Structure formats: C-alpha cells, structure tokens
C-alpha cells in the first residue's frame, strides 16, 4: 500500500514549512534512517519550498505503525519535541488517495502556482535521490515512473502550463515578445523596489547588462553589488534612457519620473531602437503618453496584472481537463496494479501444470517409452512445454484482464488456487520494469503509456 504523509502550502503556514525545509540533515541521511525502519518497504523524501512529504510503500498489516514512524521523522526534521505539535498541519493519504496525490503533485495540480513546471523536476530529483539511496525498487519506482508519464500527458494535452502567472514573469515574457535576443539588451532599473528587483533579476540572467538608477545612489550601489549590475547616478537618467532597451520602474515618486519629452529626446539619439518600459510603480512612474511614441511600449502594473489574471484564468480553465487525465491514469494504474496481484497465482498454476506434465512424461519415458532416444525425448519435452504454454495462455490472460477490471482480484485468484489446489500466496509479487512494459497488453482497452 502506498502512503503519503507531509505538509504543504495548503495545510501549513510558512514558518512550519520553513522549519521542515531548513532541516540540517541531507536527503541521504533522512532516507537512510527511514529505510532502516522495518515497517517501511520503500520510501521517498520530497522537500520543496511549498511541501515536505514522505511517500512510502508499506504492508497493509503495519500501515498504522508506518504512519506513526513517518510522523515521528517529520517531527524530528521540524525540530518538534513532541510529534503532536505537527499533527494539525499534516495530511495523510493512503492507497488510492495516495496514488492520486502523487499524480496530482507531479502534474502540478496541487502547486501553489497551478501548472508551474518546477515541481516535476523536484519530484524527479527526489526520485533520483531515493534511487541512489536504494530506498525505492519495484512498486514505488513504478508508481513514480507512471507519475512522470501522467505529468507529461497533462502538460501535453492541456494548456495548464501556458501563460505567465506573476508580474515579473509577464514583464519578461513581454520583453521576449519584443526583442529578438534578450542577451543583446540593456536593462535599466529605475528605483529599487522589491518587484522591480524581482523583474530585473529575471531579466538580469539573460540581459547584456543591468544598470540601477536610484535617487539614493548608495541604495543603488548596494543592490547593484547583489545583482552584479552597475549603479548609475540619478542625474544620468537622460543618458541612460538612450542606452537602455528595457526600463523597469518602481520608484515611490508621486509624479512620473519619465516624461514624454524625455523619451522623445532619447528616441532621437536611439535611432529608432525599440524601448520597452515595465512600469510597476503606483503611482505610475512613466507618463502614459510615452506609449504613443513610435517604437516605445509602456506596460504598467494594471496591464501586467491583467495578464497575470488572464494566465491564471486560462490555467484554471484547464484544471478540469487535467483532473480528468489524472483520474483516467489513476484508474489505468490501479487496473494494472490489480492485474499484478494475480501474478503469483498464475506463476503457481504454470508451475503446477508443468510439474504434472513433467511427472507423467518421466513415468512414460521410464516405462513404455524407454526405447526412445535422446532426440525423441527432447522433442517430447518441447512438445509438452509448448502444450503447457498454449493451454495456459488463455486462462492467464483472462485472469489478468478480469483482475484488472474487478475490484476484488484476490477472490478470483483464490478461486483459481482452490480449483487447482495451489499453495496460497502470502506475499505481494515484486513489480519489475518489465511488467510495466507489458501493461498495455495486460489491460485491454487502456491507454498505452509514453
């Protein structure tokens, strides 16, 4: 059974998440301790800005004990002396709900920013860390591989990841729509507000140069030092408007600091080069009339927030379609998983039939057929092997198919065991990647992976 226990932005305030996120121990140590617990079969530790959770595969008979141990581990990581302190912030998912949760997390349907792409990479990194620590093998490994495929399908078949959903990313996206190559652009930061800083940081990764112009030169110099940018005196603003391609404004000035006349003067010296203003100040720092100048574009905070709202709306509009895909994949995964439950029965059945045939063959070969030579004996063995395969092919396929379609596959397997006097199976079969590859053959009518 799959179990998930953790905290996320939906259940815990940031200070709780910070305590867990800032855990002094590395992932390898946490995984080592968790995997040493006998009640946990396989385990993965996922830690991001907005969630910290343990995903584990456990036996049904020790599930409560496993959840208790997982809770203790989370409390230890959060530095809680008593695990009950953490309980109000924890969520717990078991079995089908846990699988659904893993699919939704990987597909970014449970993210703070719906559809953000980073979470899939974070889940993959957590999976890799667990694989390196040898704490995931068959069942959890298969689940995670399927979760990645589900996330890919959600991203491909819906527009959940399209559109910008933050003011700074909208500004950067617009800059990309205007300029052929941001690496050739000079970014000028007017003022040193937090939002301008965020936008400039996004642009600064790719821009040719970032310059910071602030009424307080010291503040500009300080920020410039943090961002590997150049500070320029406020008095040089006119000259900087000639050089810059993208201007991000966020001063607290009650009147516009960039006027139409200033930009018009600069435009003459710019020789037709495009100038893009991202004005995120309130009140506005750039006169609205500047937008009317040829080759100059001004987008203020309202314009940008309108785009953010549009992006979020578009993503929410895709949520239903994404959820449908996830649930569809969940059913497919559960069907495949159920089909594996009868695998030990099939193996036993084949072994039984083969042993009966072998015993009969052996008796005949030592009796009436003892005159046969080695070649004839080999031919008879091959014939019986072939007969076994042909005889059991249909029952095996039907058993798997019906198990996939039925909720209680165990009853069917029990009936077969009873009919053929097979030994009862006490343990779950290990799920190898090879089994996963055969899944589309096993579950008829289901969608093929990849």
């Amino acid at each position: 059974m799959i179990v998930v226990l953790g905290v996320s932005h939906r259940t815990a305030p940031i200070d709780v998440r910070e305590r867990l996120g800032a855990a002094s121990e590395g992932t390898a140590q946490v995984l080592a301790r968790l995997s040493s617990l006998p009640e946990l079969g396989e385990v993965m530790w996922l830690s991001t800005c907005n969630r910290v959770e343990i995903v584990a595969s456990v036996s049904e008979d020790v599930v409560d004990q496993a959840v208790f141990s997982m809770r203790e581990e989370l409390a230890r990581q959060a530095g809680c002396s008593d695990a009950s302190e953490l309980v109000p912030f924890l969520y717990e998912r078991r079995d089908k709900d846990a699988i659904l949760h893993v699919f939704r997390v990987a597909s970014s349907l449970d993210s703070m920013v719906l559809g953000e792409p980073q979470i899939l990479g974070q889940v993959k990194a957590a999976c890799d860390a667990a694989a390196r620590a040898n704490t995931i093998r068959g069942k959890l490994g298969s689940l995670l591989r399927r979760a990645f495929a589900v996330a890919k399908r959600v991203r491909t078949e819906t527009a959940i990841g399209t559109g910008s959903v933050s003011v700074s990313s909208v500004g950067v996206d617009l800059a990309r729509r205007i300029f052929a190559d941001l690496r050739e652009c000079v970014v000028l930061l007017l003022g040193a507000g937090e939002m301008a800083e965020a936008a400039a940081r996004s642009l600064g990764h790719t821009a040719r140069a970032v310059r910071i112009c602030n009424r307080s030169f010291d503040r500009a110099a300080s920020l410039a030092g943090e961002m590997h940018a150049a500070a320029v005196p406020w008095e040089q603003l006119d000259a900087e408007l000639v050089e810059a391609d993208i201007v991000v404004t966020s001063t607290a000035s009650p009147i516009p600091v960039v006027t139409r006349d200033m930009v018009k003067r600069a435009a003459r010296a710019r020789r037709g080069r495009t100038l893009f203003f991202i004005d995120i100040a309130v009140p506005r720092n750039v006169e609205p009339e500047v937008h009317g100048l040829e080759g100059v574009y001004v987008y203020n905070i309202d314009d940008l927030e309108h785009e953010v709202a549009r992006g979020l709306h578009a993503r929410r509009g895709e949520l239903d379609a994404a959820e449908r895909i996830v649930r569809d994949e969940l059913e497919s995964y559960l069907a495949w998983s159920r089909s594996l439950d009868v695998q030990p029965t099939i193996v036993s059945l084949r072994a039984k039939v083969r042993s009966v045939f072998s015993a009969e063959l052996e008796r005949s070969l030592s009796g009436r057929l003892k005159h046969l030579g080695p070649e004839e004996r080999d031919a008879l063995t091959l014939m019986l092997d072939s007969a076994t395969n042909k005889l059991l092919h249909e029952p095996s396929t039907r058993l798997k198919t019906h198990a996939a379609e039925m909720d209680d596959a165990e009853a069917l397997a029990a009936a077969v065991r009873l009919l053929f006097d097979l030994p009862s199976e006490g343990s779950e079969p290990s799920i190898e990647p090879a089994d996963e590859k055969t899944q589309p053959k096993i579950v008829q009518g289901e969608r093929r992976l990849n």
Partner: protein
Amino acid sequence: MSLELPDLLLLAAAIAYLGASALFTVFLLGGPANTGRWAPLLITLAVPLHAAQIVWSSVVSHTCPVRGVHYMMSLAAMLAALTYALVRWRWRIDIVGAFVAPIALTFLLASRWAAGVAREIHPLRSALLPWHVAANLGGVALFSLASAAAVAYIIEERLLKEKKLEGAFQRFPPLEALDRAGHRFLSLGFPLLTFGILTGSLWAHEVEAGGVSAIARAVLGYLSWGLFGSVLVLRAAAGWRGRRAAYGTILGFGVTVVVLILYVLHGAYGVPTPGAP
C-alpha cells in the same frame, strides 16, 4: 479531360500552398499549436513540386523559364517560398509563411492564367536578358518576403500598442525578429533590383518605342528602386526602422507588383507577344 504532369504538379503545389494558408489562418485564429508547425512544412513541400512544375513546363514548351512571361511570377513565388523555407527557422519567422503561402498561391495560379495571355518576353538577342530577368525575379522574391515580414510586423506592433496580448499576438515571433528579417530581405533584394535596373537601361532606347505601358513600367521600376533604396538609406542614416520601414517596404512591393502586372498584361516593351489576345 486528362491532366498532364505539369498540370498535376501545379495542382499539387497549389494544394500545398492552399493547405499552408488554411493552417496558418487556423493557427492565427487560436487553433491548435500543431497547425503552426505543419503549415511551414507544407510550404517546404510545395517548393519542389512548384520547381518541378516550372522545369517540366518549360521543357515541354521549349521555353527558357526566364524568357516566358507566364513563368516570371511563378518563378518569383517559388523563389520566395524556397528562401522562406531556408531561413524561417534560423530567423524565427515561421509566421511570415502566413503571408508567403497566399502570395505564392496567387502568383502560381496567376502564372497559369498568364500562360494564355503571353508567351515570351521579347525576342531580344542579348546574353544579358536572362540575367536581367533572373535578377529582377530574385529581387521580387526577396521583396515579397520583406513585405510579408513587414505586414506581420505592422500587425504585431499594433496589437502590442493596443495591448491586445491574447489570441493572435501569442502566435507571432519577437517584433524585432520580423524587423530584422524584413531588413535582411530588403538588403539582399536591393542589389538584385539595382542590377535589373542597370541592365534594363541598356534597352532603354527600345523602351522609347514601346509606348505608354513600357514607359510607365520603366518609371514604376525606377520608383520601386527608389523606394526600397530610401528605406535602406533612411534606416542606416536616420534610424527609420520598425513601422516606418515596414510601410516603406510594403509601398515599394506594391509598386513592384504593378510593374509585374504591366509585364503580364502588355508583354515586354509594350509589344503584345505572340499568342496574346
């Protein structure tokens, strides 16, 4: 009625251009993103069909392609589509195909119609004539691409000014990429047009005998040369780029199209060519 191979090739190329135009239209109207990927491929597919049609037709009719009036537009369209297919990815101007495809389709079909109007440019016995025509055709092809990029630029720039960032705007490449592409096409086409103008002036004395149409064509040829040259000079000297350069390019191409139409309707030098009604 049985279709011969050139007709089949023309039909296939026309269908590919038409398909590309339709896919681009769907793409710009907010259709699936795949349509924007398939449309340029359809133009790329149309190019060899179109080229084969021109070669096969000229072989069948024993006419050098650069001498047949009805091949002129077809060749120009094919060269434009070929150039687009070669540079679209590197210059990030896939969307220019939305204008190239209908232009190519129009020129291709017009060439079919023109085949019944005029047969040959002029029986001038000059080795320079094919080069003159080829340079002009190359120029026309590049100017059609420049004007396609200019139209795309003006549309995108207007959307950006009006802050209409939904729908079609999302399907355009960066504004500056369109401006740069337009400038590059113009810079490449202008020397060809200049060569065409210079070599054409060698037969200027015959133009004098060619009547009003030939004179109008020559004057318009010089005008288009002047317009394209002005766009390039003003861009370099006064920073006229973006919207102004786009309008200048479209105007120059408009004049070029008029010259082409005069060619087709009246043959070279105003003499209705054999077979013309």
